[in-house]
């Protein structure tokens, strides 16, 4: 039996062991889980030994020490500090002197705080705001004023349908016309189709409807996250619209997560049927 065949049988045994948890917690699952836990820890132990400690510490520090013995100072001798801090981190394993690990921990926390303060501010705040605030109408030079007017009227109509539909949903509950949920859903679907058509239309047209919707979504979403003022009146309405955008976002993310997990499951079943049992070509 070749090592590949042994590998396939081991993989099948462990795969079925993990899947057996669907029935109930059992020794086969616990055995497979224990192997997974141990292997994961061992994997990271070995990987970091070569990729971080050897490649970044030993490769820099060792030649610097050799240079020092030859009477030359090498700036890489500063890696001694990292080595000492790394050892101090491991002292957490000895409870009486475990507090020493706060020193290396503070280097990691301080470095991460300094790095994230700048990176998040530049990438996730400033650039995202810059991408959100864009011109709404951008006519190319070649388009005539009559065509421009038609395009604007067409887009305004689509946008009006969107606003009216959203208005019905948003303010319907505060008026004497209390719309039932299916009706609200109907108006929302009309709004969704209007948005889709408008976006498709504006993709080749000068009105940046897409940008406008994104701006509205970001604006209302941020209002929802603003808790220093009570969510009532216009502020509350905008916050409600913000929750709709957030719900769509969560729904889309959830859809992708389901797909990725299903894809993994199909991969495992494919392995069992094709590579192990060979019942499917």
């Amino acid at each position, binding site marked *: 039996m070749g090592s590949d065949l042994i590998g396939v049988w081991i993989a099948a045994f462990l795969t079925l062991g993990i899947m057996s948890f669907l029935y109930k917690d059992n020794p086969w699952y616990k055995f497979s889980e224990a192997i997974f836990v141990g*292997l994961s820890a*061992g994997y990271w132990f070995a990987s970091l030994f*070569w990729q971080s400690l050897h490649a970044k510490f030993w490769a820099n520090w060792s030649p610097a020490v050799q240079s020092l013995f030859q009477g030359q100072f090498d700036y890489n001798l500063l890696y001694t500090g990292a080595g000492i801090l790394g050892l101090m981190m491991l002292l957490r394993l000895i409870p009486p002197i475990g507090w020493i690990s706060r020193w290396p921990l503070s280097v990691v926390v*301080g470095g991460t705080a300094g790095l994230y303060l700048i990176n998040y501010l530049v990438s996730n705040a400033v650039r995202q705001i810059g991408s959100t605030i864009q011109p709404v109408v951008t006519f190319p030079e070649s388009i005539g004023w009559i065509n421009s007017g038609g395009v604007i009227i067409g887009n305004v109509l689509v946008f009006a349908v969107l606003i009216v539909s959203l208005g019905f949903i948003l303010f319907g509950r505060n008026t004497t016309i209390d719309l039932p949920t299916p009706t609200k859903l109907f108006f929302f679907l009309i709004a969704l189709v209007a948005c889709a058509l408008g976006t498709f239309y504006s993709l080749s047209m000068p009105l940046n409807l897409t940008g406008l919707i994104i701006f509205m*979504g970001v604006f209302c979403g941020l209002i*929802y996250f603003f808790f220093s003022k009570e969510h009532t009146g216009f502020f509350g309405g905008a916050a409600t619209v913000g929750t709709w*955008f957030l719900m769509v976002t969560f729904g889309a993310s959830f859809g992708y997560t389901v797909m990725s*997990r299903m894809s*993994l499951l199909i991969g*495992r079943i494919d392995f069992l049927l094709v590579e192990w049992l060979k019942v499917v070509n």
Partner: protein
Amino acid sequence: MRREIPLIITATVGIAYIIQYFIPHTPFDKVEALFSDWLSIIAACAIWLGALNLLKLSFINVSKRKKDWFFSLVIIMSWLTMAMVGISEGPGFQEPGTKFDWLYNNVYTPLSATMFAMLAFYVASASYRAFRARNFQATLLLVAAFLVLSGRVLFDEIVFGFLPADWKILSTISDFIMQVLNTAGQRAILIGIALGTVSTSLRIILGIERSYLGSD
């Protein structure tokens, strides 16, 4: 001593990183490069700490014959096997054909993939509870997830197969949700996270936030 020195270290390293962004020239760029390597080495030791702690606790479980001690023994054996094989292989331990690579492909990857694949069943169960159209927001979640899912699989061909081939209705709606509505929501979340991160980082660097130092 136990709290003051870590606070000084935190502020020094944090401010060094901030200065490096505004003055990206020698010596600050070299300091930043050095600190980045330091962080990488210390982070590696922190992960080693976790791995060694697992080994320590497993040894205690086995030596005291605690409940399920046999599985702790399995953890120790598999831990030592993977670590020893990886370290003995040398810097090229991940290259194809090595023993470490064999263990990775035939034991670690199947276990890892199956463990995450199992989440498909729990996601299905969670989605049943989350996606019940109890109110308008839950309905939005349901409709968005359904449209994104159907736009990414073969639903267009199955449901709208009678339409011309280039009419991808579900794909277009799915793209619209992903590129417009989802982008707007993601940006609002990202900007919120960024502002929160900036304020928390400032609190840490200025020594106002000290919870990471523990209580004693």
